[in-house]
């Protein structure tokens, strides 16, 4: 088999940018991802074995449960390469089985920070003086540098600005794992909706594409046109500080606290934040929230043009390419092995007439194209949906696309 080398114009590398859309609906302490209904299984309550609103990383433990239909799980042996799964110990002997567990899942999480910059306090036993210790909300402190970094894009990002000091404000932080958005959230695609008793009472959108979440609806609503928070596109965080009342009525929106007016700092209540009818109150059921955004995902695409020029690629190694019942070996002995060089190729040229065999015409059917590396290792095979006939005097070019 002869190999052909790609020319300098035969390989093209492109980047295809995709914007996968995600949507979360939060109601009654449940999250619904992309409006996917709950599916029950024969062995497990949830067929995909992850809670509602979660995405399963491998999706291979569908409807499994310990016992009757046990889980698929990963394992390896402790090796000198240093590879480890979660739970590996350096004291394990070489050859020890190190196992992990599936399914791995992710979902959005809301964190309500009553006073974002608040710190815990302790008392010095010697002096009796009170001093500040660790932050109550360490996630706020972790994000301070990033917020100030984006302050050049919008003043609303800054921790301390003319809009106030975030450390003294109530912050509603929503964390979005990167599996939902890829490289970054697409600016201009973020939308947050606040529903009270099923009616839309507020909509936030990043219409300026600079991270500011501006209240765009409903028309004439309280706070319309105001900035209620910011989005960290690259990091997948939404910080809401808008505390104006979106409704004059009060409902239960905070665990262990009294009724509140619906506002942006209570948006998303129930998203893994310990807010439920049992911790907040029955009227929590009148609140629901929706979040939608687009992610950004780059896919590298390699396009290869494989040429089958006239006079080339005109022979098949398929055993049926040769007429049946011909001797392969012409002569063999302890000194010589000589193949029959006059074997006839089977003539499968199509005739225009019935009961008439067409004249012999050299042709092959190309069914696949193999890709080799520079050391002639087979690294890929492209199979055609239908074999393509190639006659001796034809030029064919196969366009191969590889998404990486």
């Amino acid at each position: 088999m002869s190999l052909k080398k790609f020319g300098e114009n035969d390989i093209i590398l492109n980047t295809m940018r995709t914007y996968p859309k995600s949507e979360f609906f939060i109601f009654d302490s449940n999250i619904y991802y992309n409006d996917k209904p709950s599916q029950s299984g024969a062995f497990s309550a949830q067929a995909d074995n992850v809670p509602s609103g979660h995405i399963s990383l491998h999706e291979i433990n569908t409807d499994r449960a310990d016992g009757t239909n046990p889980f698929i799980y990963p394992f390896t042996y402790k090796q000198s390469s240093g590879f480890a799964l979660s739970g590996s110990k350096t004291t394990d002997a070489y050859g020890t089985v190190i196992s992990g567990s599936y399914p791995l899942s992710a979902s959005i999480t809301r964190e309500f920070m009553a006073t974002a910059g608040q710190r815990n306090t302790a008392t010095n036993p010697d002096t009796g003086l009170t001093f500040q210790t660790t932050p109550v909300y360490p996630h706020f402190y972790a994000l301070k540098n990033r917020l100030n970094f984006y302050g050049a894009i919008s003043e609303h990002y800054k921790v301390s600005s003319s809009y106030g000091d975030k450390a003294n404000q109530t912050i509603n932080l929503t964390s979005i794992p990167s599996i939902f958005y890829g490289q970054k959230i697409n600016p201009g695609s973020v939308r947050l909706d606040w529903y009270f008793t099923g009616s839309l009472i507020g909509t936030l959108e990043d219409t300026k594409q600079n991270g500011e979440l501006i209240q765009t609806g409903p028309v004439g609503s309280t706070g319309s046109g105001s900035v209620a928070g910011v989005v960290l596109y690259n990091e997948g965080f939404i910080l809401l500080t808008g505390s104006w009342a979106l409704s004059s009525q009060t409902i239960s929106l905070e665990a262990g606290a009294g009724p509140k007016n619906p506002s942006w700092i209570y948006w998303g209540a129930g998203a893994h934040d310990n807010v439920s009818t049992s911790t907040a109150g029955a009227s929590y059921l009148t609140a629901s929230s929706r979040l939608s955004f687009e992610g950004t995902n780059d896919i590298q695409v390699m396009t290869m043009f494989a040429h089958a020029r006239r006079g080339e690629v005109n022979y098949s190694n398929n055993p049926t390419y040769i007429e049946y019942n011909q001797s392969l070996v012409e002569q063999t002995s302890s000194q010589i092995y000589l193949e029959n060089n006059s074997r006839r190729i089977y003539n499968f040229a199509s005739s225009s007439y019935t009961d008439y065999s067409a004249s012999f015409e050299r042709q092959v059917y190309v069914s696949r194209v193999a890709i080799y590396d520079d050391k002639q290792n087979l690294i890929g095979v492209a199979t055609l949906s239908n074999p393509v006939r190639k006659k001796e005097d034809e030029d064919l070019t196969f366009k191969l696309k590889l998404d990486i």
Partner: protein
Amino acid sequence: MAVTNYEILDLTQDVTTTRTLLHESIPLTGTIISGTYGTFPSEDNIKNYTHGQFQSVYDYPYLSSSANHIFDISIGYDEASPLSGSPGVTLEAKKINMYNQFSQVLLGYTGSTNTVRKFELDLTLDEVGAMQESFFLNFSRLITKDQIKKGSVSITLGTGSWATPFAGTKVLTDVSASDTGGTTNTFGGDYGLLYSSDNVVRGLVFYQAGIAVLSTSSFDVMTDFLSESAGTKSVAQVFVSSSITGACDALRHRVQNISFNNTTEINSTIYFCRVPHNKYNHSSNPTYLSASTIRVKNVATDTPVAYITTIGLYSSQNELLAVAKLSEPLRKDPTNEITLRVRLDY
């Protein structure tokens, strides 16, 4: 990331590769193969096709987006089999073609006569001990990954009556196969033998292809391999007069358990990034300076201090290819040298 100079990696000293084998334990119980998602033989997780050449098994009703394809089942026999040309035969051409297709892909052709090899119940491929009638279990790439781990396959088949198939069982294992031997390499990759507990070879398993080929000999003594309204059939009668789909249904009824471990090769490149004592003691972070003065120095003779947080790997054209983040910043000053080990798994 602001970079003002680059450290060139010495490919002979600063870069090395390792390979790790990661496995998954794959249990496929008979409960998902028959009877759970509907009434046998028309379960919702079993997909039949109009071409009738094989049957697909899913782990959940296949119309759901949550369902995963687990494996396909088919049967076939060689044209030289005693079953070939039997009276009342159904779909014989398809059954013979199926056998030839699998054997051609997995075993290839014999030497000079250019005939398709037959499956043999040994590792020699010497055209002796042919397995002329076979069940084929073609496992999905999703669960076999790079290959099935040698020595980990176990298939439990029910050999009881049709009504109580698991009153007796036969456990087939590739007990003699390991990473160091007990297999033969051929067109379809390495294959090993499936032994029953009485040490008789009852089938083959092709590790890279992810295909198990089971001999009908496990069921030869049974008169009711299949029971239907028209009566009972032995396994030979099923191969002759039942459709491929019907034969696959009968096998599914008798699969109690399938388990194996898969293997994924994880290749790693390790880059040793060496930070000499007299470099990288300053930072280009804007906060490193205050009023044009280095914050960490009080007087000009103080040694500079920097904290390393990130390592960038660049191509030969100085294009940023990858970034490694430290779990916590690492103090660097002229009194220490650091080697940072950056591991890239793929």
